[in-house]
Each structure stands twice: as structure tokens, then as C-alpha cells.
């Protein structure tokens, strides 16, 4: 469990580049049918400058794919194997397109202690406001994770 004193603490900031190859592979793995995720010509025909991000692409930049952030949580008492994804929320403020760079500093937005059938656990909310290379807010990523005691 994470000491409630860490409420409000932020990590990073982390900067990532949105890559065409990653968009294609991610879309393919989810069997997304839209051509715009694979074909630049199709994206341009749809009025986009390059391949757009699929709705859940930001998970590639979030907690589960960020070993540095996972290490930070482990150091606070929440190792990976005791974490379970409870909820995921995205708010989309501006388009995310291949070639963009996103910068975000995940912050502990809530820490709630709860009592479950199998004992106590903690609910951790991590909020990341990703800004693009122009400084525009692009995505708010809110990840709710259950932290098991043992």
C-alpha cells in the first residue's frame, strides 16, 4: 500500500513520440478496420496530416508500459504484481497524430482505502495530462488501479 502522504505527488515528466509503426502495430493487434490507421494516403484523404492515434493508443505511454513509473510505484509499496486495472478514462482535447511528441507527468490524484471480501485494498488514481509539442492539452488519461495488500 502507498502512504497517503504521497497524495498529489507527480512523476516524470515523461516525453514520448507517437510513431507510425506503433500505430499500425497497435491497430493491427486490435483488428481495427479503419484504413486511416495503416495507410498515410487514406489518412490524408480523411483530412488528417498523418496516421491518427487509435482511441486507446495512449496506453502505450501509460503506467503499464512505463518501467520507470512502475519502479517508482514499487518503491512506494505498490509492486506490479499487486496491481489490477480497475478503470481507464480518456478525455480527448486535441487530435494526436503520428509525429507528435507528448509530455506528461502522471500524478497521484486519489488514494482510497477500501475493505473487500478478501481483505483491505487501496484504490490508486493516476492522472496524466498529456500535452503535445505545441503545448496544447491533447489527452487527459485517468487510470484507476487496485493495489492489493498481499
Amino acid at each position, binding site marked *: 500500500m502507498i502512504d497517503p502522504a504521497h497524495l498529489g505527488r507527480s512523476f516524470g515528466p515523461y516525453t514520448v513520440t507517437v510513431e507510425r509503426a506503433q500505430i499500425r502495430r497497435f491497430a493491427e493487434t486490435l483488428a481495427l478496420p479503419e484504413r486511416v*490507421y495503416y495507410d498515410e494516403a487514406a489518412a490524408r484523404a*480523411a483530412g*488528417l496530416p498523418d496516421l491518427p492515434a487509435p482511441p486507446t493508443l495512449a496506453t*502505450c505511454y501509460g503506467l503499464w*508500459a512505463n518501467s520507470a513509473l512502475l519502479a517508482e510505484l514499487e518503491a512506494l509499496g505498490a509492486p506490479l504484481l499487486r496491481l489490477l486495472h480497475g*478503470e481507464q*478514462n480518456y478525455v480527448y482535447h486535441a*487530435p494526436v497524430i503520428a509525429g507528435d511528441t507528448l509530455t506528461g507527468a502522471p500524478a497521484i490524484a486519489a488514494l482510497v482505502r477500501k475493505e473487500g471480501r478478501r481483505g483491505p485494498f487501496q484504490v490508486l488514481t493516476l492522472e496524466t495530462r498529456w500535452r503535445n509539442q505545441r503545448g496544447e492539452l491533447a489527452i487527459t488519461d485517468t487510470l484507476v488501479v487496485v493495489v492489493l495488500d498481499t
Partner: protein
Amino acid sequence: MPTFNTYRVGDELPGFETEPLTLEWFSRYAIASGDHNPLHTDPAVGQAAGHGGVIAHGMLVMGLLGRVAAYLGGPGALREFRTRFQAPTRPGDRLRCGGRITAVYEREGRRFVEAELWAIGQDGVARASGVVVASLLP
């Protein structure tokens, strides 16, 4: 593709049912998403964690719900996408993914449409539920 004028509250979105999910798919999703938690790919780890084997990445299930959400509009149309993971998804599960329009409204000159989404296993148990909000750019 419908327009915002043709959406009606209560309309179901076109859904789909997956093939039985496989450990191989979880492994491909691990590579594509960068989530290498062995809980999703190593049966021994899943067993030790009390899940009786591997469980799917929640985000794989949300990604499948995204295919239903896409009916409300292409990239750039989604404003919010929220998902709650309700029960573990395991290899062999078949997920029925669908949705239903819950609200159509106008705000500040823009039309919005909201839908609820679901992913239900072959056993009738809900694995995830979601909400999507879409609006065409002005």
C-alpha cells in the same frame, strides 16, 4: 455511417463477437502495447497470483470496445472514452461487444452523442462496461 441527425436514444450500435481469446493474442497485445506484465502472458505467474492462469490485459478489452465506439465517428470525433473492468477475461473466453446510444444533445453549437458499451463473456458475465462521448469537430 449515420450522421448526428440520425442517432436516436436507444439505438444499438453494431457489435461483434470475438473468436475465443488466446494466450497468443495476449502476447501480441503485450508487444504492441508495451505492457509486459507476466500476469497476462505467463500461466505460472497468473496461477501464483490466484487467477488460475493468465488474464487478459484490461486494455485489450477496452481496445475491442473501441471498435464499437468507432461507429460514432472516426478519429477526432471521440471526446471521452471511459471503461470499468468488471471481471477477468481468460483464454477461451468469447466476448460479445456492443453498445447503445444513451443521449443525443447540443451544447454550444455542437452536437454530442453518448453511448454505453459492454463486453460480455459467453457465460453471460460482464467483463467490462464503458461510456463513449463523440462530437463532430465544429
